[in-house]
């Protein structure tokens, strides 16, 4: 009975309003009342300095406004800050705009930033964004090597309050891209209400259940785990652009494919990350409401340097030339990703197209000749293996890549599946011969250095393959210490040229934000951090 009446009432609704079944979707669209729903996964945390994944950062983007935003050339411009300046790129002076308040009425001051950053850098808090503060003077004193030891200091020596709206940040070494870093979630301020003991950097565990920020939207109720996070417009928001909608509801999903079903049924407004399964039908289902914008993620294959089979650069180049990137992105990824022929993504200042040059052009004859010249199949032990993690949906393109290598180089090529990326890394660290292995990289802030440093310098945090070239390290260091961003870019580009010669990795693709939206909203855009630009959103009135 219940079922029948439910079905009947839904049919009626559908007939009258030409909309799908369910509450909250009827009536004319009034801009001031429009609450836009966005699909996300369950965030890991909602404390800014511990939020490095996209679900949490989507929510925090509604609740907070960063110090800087980025222009069309991906260069930082002041947003919540009045000015961010430095004479030597080591001591940075940050002046805040006056008049900003947190959602609980507390004014935003220099202390709001200093307290938040100290808590983020405080080792015992074990925040995910802890590493963002490494460059600030005094970081080591807060992060002892032995986790059971008491840290030497409670506060970062490099943070100094000048007056209520000004503070100084002293870095360990000059770093030209520091201003670019400040757009990241880890650098958001925190109100005093967030702390249970501000002197000891203790954040109240209840804070993240209803975070208080200084952004365009504030929490409405608390975080309903695995279900919903609701926000509403904050009327005292001090930013230059005001929200044009009444609020944002983040609906939490276990599977991205369910988000898409909800979008089609009119129960969800924005799917920020369309899964590959839905992209084929999205073009037909959504038309121009299926959208793309560049993202920072790059995908590549890396050669472990401890594996003698890949020691000859000719072998590495031959493999790269044997891969038809265009074919794979078109047929397997349905253009949801784009071919990459450089070592950084296109969304950083200083990116140049095709720095890899001829070695990344698809050229099977040349690849075969080069491969044979370097010893052919026996030189790589009779076969090439590509290791990947099976939980990331990588199998189809790894298989396709292997098929191309097999066909074009005449050598057996097989995928080497690993249950998780963590397991793959453990094997690489033990120097087990897993073969080539796949990697992806998402930047933390738009700077060439954020690819070159962690991925290719000798002590880079994600240089699992062990690439080391002293000249490259020197050029990156010179870039970091350069006086101006332009000068830095020149050094970084020289460094990238070395990568094209040494070929420690095979660049394959850079990703796109693939997103879809309902007919109720328009002007839906996504930024470089995979976040929906909430201040752009407008009700679709026609």
């Amino acid at each position, binding site marked *: 009975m*219940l*079922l029948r009446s*439910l*079905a009947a009432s*839904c*049919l009626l609704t*559908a007939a009258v309003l030409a909309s*799908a*079944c*369910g*509450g909250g979707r009827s009536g004319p669209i009034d801009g001031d009342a429009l609450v836009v729903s966005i699909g996300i996964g*369950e965030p*890991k*945390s909602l404390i800014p300095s511990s939020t*490095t*994944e996209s679900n949490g950062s989507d929510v925090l983007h509604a609740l907070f406004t960063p110090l800087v935003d980025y222009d069309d050339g991906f260069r930082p411009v002041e947003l919540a800050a009045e000015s961010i300046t430095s004479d030597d790129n080591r001591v940075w002076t940050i002046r805040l705009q006056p008049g900003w308040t947190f959602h609980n009425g507390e004014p935003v001051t220099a202390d709001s930033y200093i307290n938040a950053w100290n808590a983020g850098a405080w*080792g*015992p*808090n*074990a*925040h*995910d964004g*802890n*590493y963002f503060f*490494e460059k600030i003077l005094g970081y080591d004193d807060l*992060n002892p*090597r*032995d*986790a*059971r030891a008491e840290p030497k200091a409670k506060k970062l020596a490099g943070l100094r309050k000048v007056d209520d709206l000004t503070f100084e940040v002293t870095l360990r070494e000059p770093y030209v891209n520091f201003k670019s870093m400040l757009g990241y979630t880890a650098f958001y301020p925190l109100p005093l209400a967030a702390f249970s003991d501000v002197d000891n950097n203790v954040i109240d565990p209840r804070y993240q259940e209803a975070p208080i920020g200084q952004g365009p939207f504030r929490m409405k109720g608390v975080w309903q*785990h*695995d*279900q919903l996070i609701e926000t509403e417009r904050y009327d005292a928001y001090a930013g230059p652009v005001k929200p044009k909608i009444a609020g944002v509801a983040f609906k*939490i*999903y*276990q*599977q991205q*494919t*369910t988000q898409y*079903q*909800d979008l*089609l*049924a009119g*129960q969800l407004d924005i799917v920020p990350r369309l899964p590959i399964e839905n992209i084929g039908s999205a073009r037909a289902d959504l038309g121009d409401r299926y959208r793309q914008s560049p993202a920072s993620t790059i995908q590549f294959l890396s050669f472990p340097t401890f594996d003698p089979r890949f020691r000859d650069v000719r072998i590495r180049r031959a493999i790269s030339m044997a891969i038809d990137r265009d074919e794979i992105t078109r047929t397997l990824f349905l253009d949801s990703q784009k071919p990459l022929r450089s070592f950084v993504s296109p969304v950083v200042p200083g990116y140049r197209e095709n720095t890899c040059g001829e070695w990344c052009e698809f050229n099977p004859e040349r690849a075969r000749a080069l491969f044979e010249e370097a010893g052919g199949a026996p030189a790589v032990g009779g076969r090439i293996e590509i290791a990947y993690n099976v*939980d990331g949906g990588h199998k189809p393109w790894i298989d396709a890549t292997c098929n191309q290598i097999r066909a074009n180089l005449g050598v057996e090529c097989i995928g080497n599946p690993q249950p*998780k*990326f*963590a*397991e793959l*890394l*453990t094997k690489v660290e033990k120097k087990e011969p897993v073969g080539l292995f796949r*990697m*992806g990289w*998402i930047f933390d802030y738009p700077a060439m250095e954020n690819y070159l440093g*962690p991925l290719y310098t000798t002590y880079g*945090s*994600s240089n699992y393959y062990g690439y080391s070239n002293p000249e490259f390290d020197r050029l990156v260091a010179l870039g970091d210490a350069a006086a101006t961003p332009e000068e830095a870019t020149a050094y970084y580009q020289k460094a990238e040229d070395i990568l094209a010669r040494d070929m420690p990795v095979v660049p394959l693709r850079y990703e796109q934000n693939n997103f879809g939206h309902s007919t109720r909203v328009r002007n839906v855009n996504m930024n470089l951090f995979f976040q929906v630009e909430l201040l752009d959103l407008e009700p679709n009135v026609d």
Partner: protein
Amino acid sequence: MSRFILRRLLQSVLTFFGATLIVYALMFSIATDPLQALAGERPLNESQRAQLTAQYHLDEPFLVQYGYYMRGLLTGDMGRTITGRPITDVLAESWPRTIQLTLITMVIVVVVGVTGGVIAGLRRGGVFDQTSLALTLVVIGTPVFVLGTVFQTVFAVELGWFRPSYAPELGLATYILPAIVLGLLSLATAMRLTRASVAENLRADYVRTAAAKGLGRGRIVGVHVLRNSLIPVMTFLGTELGMLMSGAMVTEGIFNIPGIGGRLFQGIRLEDGPLVVTIVSLMILIYLATNLLVDLLYAVLDPRIRHE
């Protein structure tokens, strides 16, 4: 009777401890690096790794870790998930949803399955029997995630009769479509089982006797046949309740119901030992309890069965 129950309860305690130990050992042996699993492909910062390892005792040997877990459990503190939430909170939120879903499923299975089975059994070879046979075969042969996605697309997205995903504002109605999907397989089995059982009992001697005594058909079927036919069905349904709870993982995922299945899946993916062990242990307890209940119900249905 009470001695029987007492003995079974004592057995349950032993089973519970044995099961937690085994599940904990399994989780421990598959875990390569829970912290890296949590961080995904991002490198884990040294300071953070050291801190979390110490907090979660990840560098201690297996028995010590199990000891910490058991000590917490026995003092009522289930610990925290690896993402930092108290496990008690997680369970308190998600269990009721899974239980609601399972109970609604059970109602559908019993009502539709048993009724359908009785009708098919009474009119063997008829149109209803033939159609239901064909349909149940299709259902038994289809994986649940296929059924789930097809039902979601057809009945929720295309026809708009239901919501594609969990909507708490609809109350229990939100569970109907997922419950149908989850219950279809059990329903098909229950129906086949009831049909076979009814058909067999209809030919039993006591039915002929009852008919010879001049009892009405309604009374013969309703009291004599049904009661005897339900014993195998009860056994099946009892074990099925536990199956449904663990099987809800797939259905909950498709329909986005924030129940226990999703938490278990997440726990396994993140190698979160304490969370997985707690959920699995609770499932074992429920399984034990329903089995005890089924055994007691036997005695009610069939006076010849006695528990000493």
